[in-house]
């Protein structure tokens, strides 16, 4: 191999080259610079509504019905906002390179070459720093949110110990081809094909499967975890909204995968208790 480094030798900078800040000022005075920046801002503002449209899409069937789902939507919203400027900048350059800067057609290669910009220290540094900062922000945000969601899912366990707290309702979720069954072990094994949840009360799910992999997705509650054969996965949630929501299977599980769905009924505590009584379970504490 050659002993040469990867970096192509930079052209020697002239001694009377103005300082960086001045060069930026000069750069801003170039005819295309302002146009691109304006274009960047315009496209950015055109993209901005996306942040709300995404949430509108997610909220169609009554989400968010839990803190977890709120966190998820918050994350989506923030990520959209922060990624808009850089996306808008790239789009602005694409548009301007087609409409702003010269372009030629024809069968022969253009006679006149473009400026030989081999690199641009300021531009490269700006991009690297901003993209790194962006990535770091996303990582940190993600880690914090993940920790919070984990706390929300498993807070139900902690709630058991805390005095004065409403104790957690434990539900054993069984996926099998192609139905869900929900067992309430605290109510002498009362089992149901519809998921009944008490309002504002932590619920703790044990999830497993009797045959293949399924994925227990309580859509509007933002709960999702695989139901694995031969293993028990755990999650939890506190439903804070009355209504009828969806459980869908989000992992291909065979012929009737599309039909492996059922309802979630979030009930007031007393309505939940009376349901338990009617369907043969003991009265809840």
């Amino acid at each position: 191999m050659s002993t040469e480094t990867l970096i192509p030798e930079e052209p020697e900078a002239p001694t009377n080259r103005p300082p960086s800040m001045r060069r930026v000022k000069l750069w801003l005075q170039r005819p295309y610079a302002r146009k691109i920046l304006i274009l960047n801002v315009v496209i950015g503002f055109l993209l901005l509504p996306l942040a709300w449209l995404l949430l509108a899409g997610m909220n169609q069937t009554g989400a968010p019905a839990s803190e977890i789902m709120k966190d998820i939507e918050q994350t989506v919203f923030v990520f959209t906002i922060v990624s808009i400027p850089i996306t808008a900048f790239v789009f602005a350059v694409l548009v301007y390179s087609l409409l702003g800067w010269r372009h030629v057609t024809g069968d022969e290669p253009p006679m006149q070459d473009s400026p030989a910009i081999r690199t641009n220290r300021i531009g490269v540094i700006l991009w690297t720093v901003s993209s790194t900062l962006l990535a770091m922000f996303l990582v940190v945000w993600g880690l914090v949110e993940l920790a919070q969601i984990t706390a929300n899912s498993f807070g139900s366990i902690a709630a058991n110990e805390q005095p004065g707290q409403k104790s957690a309702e434990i539900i054993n979720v069984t996926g099998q081809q192609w139905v869900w069954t929900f067992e309430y072990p605290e109510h002498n094994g009362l089992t149901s094909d519809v998921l009944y949840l008490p309002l504002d009360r932590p619920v703790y799910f044990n999830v497993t499967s009797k045959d293949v992999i399924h994925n227990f997705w309580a859509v509007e509650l933002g709960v999702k975890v695989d139901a694995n054969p031969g293993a028990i996965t755990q999650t939890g949630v506190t439903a804070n909204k009355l209504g009828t929501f969806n459980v869908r299977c989000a992992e291909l599980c065979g012929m009737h995968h599309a039909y492996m769905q059922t309802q979630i009924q979030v009930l007031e505590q007393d309505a939940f208790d009376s349901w338990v009584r009617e369907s043969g379970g003991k009265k809840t504490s």
Partner: protein
Amino acid sequence: MARRSRLGMWFFIVADVAGTIALVISYTYLWSLNVNGGWAPPGATLTASQTNTALPTTPPTASFAVEWPFWAILLVVVAATALMWFGYRSARSGNHAGLLIGAGLSFLVTVAALVFQWIQISTFPFDAGDGAYASAVLLLCASNIFHLLLLLFLGMGIFMRARKGLIDKANWYQAQLTGYYMTWVCVAFLLGAILTTFLVVSPNTDPAIFGTFKQQ
């Protein structure tokens, strides 16, 4: 040409290493999980899996494999490799007889290793259906056989070509590349022997019972 071939052989070894690593991962992962108490062959250790009706009934005679054959076969393969390197050195120093002897013996010893491997597989105290341990060990042996067959091919090639005087000072590298590959195969055998010797009884003593919310 020699440099090219050497690079090519190294890259092929990289691919082979990745595949072997996949096998090692499978063995250790299943060993550590002991899903549904199904790692050990039934009868080897009395896990609660017997109480689990979901398990198909299997002969209670099955048990873990004996360790020493793995090491014995490893020794044989190492011998074959050493002979091949001896042959390569001879070729390098122009000693044609040495090359012939080294390559020829290496080929014969490889055949012996293949025979041993086959005997070991046919005398395992379990068959493919007896849980994850049986599966993992059998596939390790299968990959061993695959490697030995490749060695047979290479060894025969080197021997035949040596007889025709095709491997001389000009292109000794073919013997050298064979040596490289055989050395890697030794490492692969060593990995198998280590796994089957030191990772036998699963550390997970209370796996969840399949399809239920109970631990065993």
